[in-house]
């Protein structure tokens, strides 16, 4: 192998390893952001813990449309919890949903801007 070819291979290998480090780091940060999202999309109400998702929001809206003011919902532990103010609960759920999603998109945008490992970790210029 000529010295030039060896140098080119070394260069390519180094670039690959740099890219691999970047991808591994960004993967970690994405997973962290997903956990924060999951945490932010839970709400405690009357002792129950509820996971907020589109299905839950839609179901509460259906109950409200059906003129229900209270209902028993199952929480993440499948414990029945009486929600006595469905409109108030919907408002709390939507607030949490929007806040969580806004934080999540900001996290993702920050990661998208960071083009190297140091930047992903907030250690250097993007």
């Amino acid at each position, binding site marked *: 192998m000529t010295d030039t070819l060896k140098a080119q291979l070394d260069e390519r290998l180094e670039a690959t390893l740099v890219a691999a480090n970047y991808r591994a780091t960004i993967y970690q940060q994405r997973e*962290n952001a997903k*956990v924060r999202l999951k945490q932010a999309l839970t709400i405690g109400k009357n002792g129950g813990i509820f996971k907020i998702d589109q299905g839950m929001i839609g179901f509460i809206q259906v109950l409200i449309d059906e003129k229900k003011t209270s209902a028993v919902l199952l929480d993440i532990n499948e414990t029945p919890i009486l929600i006595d103010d469905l409109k108030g609960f919907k408002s709390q759920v939507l607030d949490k949903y929007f806040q969580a999603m806004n934080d999540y998109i900001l996290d993702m945008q920050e990661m998208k801007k960071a083009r190297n490992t140091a930047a992903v970790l907030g250690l250097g210029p993007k």
Partner: protein
Amino acid sequence: MGAKKTLASLKNKGFTRGVLLFATNNDAVDYVKMALLCASLVKKHLNVPVTLVTDPWWNTLDIVTKNQQIFDSTFDKVIVISNDDPVNSRAYRDTQYHSVTADFKNGNRLSAYELSPYDETIVLDVDYLVLSDNLNKLWGSPHDFHISRDATRINHQKLIGKEYRLNDYGIRMVWATVLYFKKNKFSKLIFDMVAHIKEHWDYYHLVYDFPDGLYRNDYAFSIALHTLGGALEEATVPGLPGDTIYTLLDRDQIYTATPSSWQLFINDDVETWKFTSTLWHGIDLHCLNKLSLLRVTNSLLASLHDNYLPT
């Protein structure tokens, strides 16, 4: 719900809710200092009262004499007990390159039921760092007892093997790192069962065939809940709001830390010389590398308390 609102609303309802910590220092680890950090983070993120259970000589410790005012404002109550437990000896690893062996006493966790001044209590290991308000979702639970059944590494891989079952064919393990209980008959039954298991540790070691004979609260609670659940695999009690405890292993490292952001080094499973970095915030963290945690504790406490004097 905001942390301040939580405290105000529970005072109105006449319930007492709070966090209970246990700290017994040894030659290698300043558990009391870690308890101060843990309690400061609880105050910041959960805003509930904190009680410390510790040794009779705790107030002669350097960190306490220098920072008495901070201790007074951070801990609502300090309970002093003589820890007559037999001494366990264990290795504290600090990455794969360094470890120290020291005596430690962890057997007083089962007195949490008797000692807790609260109607609803969250018991935390002092190396559990509260970095979110997630645990506030537990207050007012319709269940009497919560404990985590899963632990996940900071690289998002579930901990398996002896951190998942007591042995290869054994029962599922629970993590006594974080537990919630109400003062009632059922919770008392659990703690009484744990005390019984501790008293007959050798017998239960034989029956459940867990690794080494060292007393471990996780095993004792696992066996107690398994027994109380009629020896079924299904969970006797529900888990925590976040499903899992994110864990920094003793071969991982804390590189830098501020109260709002942590840079952590994750040790590679295969290429053990290699570390991947991760930026951590907003997710509670169980820090098994206590020596690494202690290296950043002074700077964290200084950020959390203006008048903190390092030791």
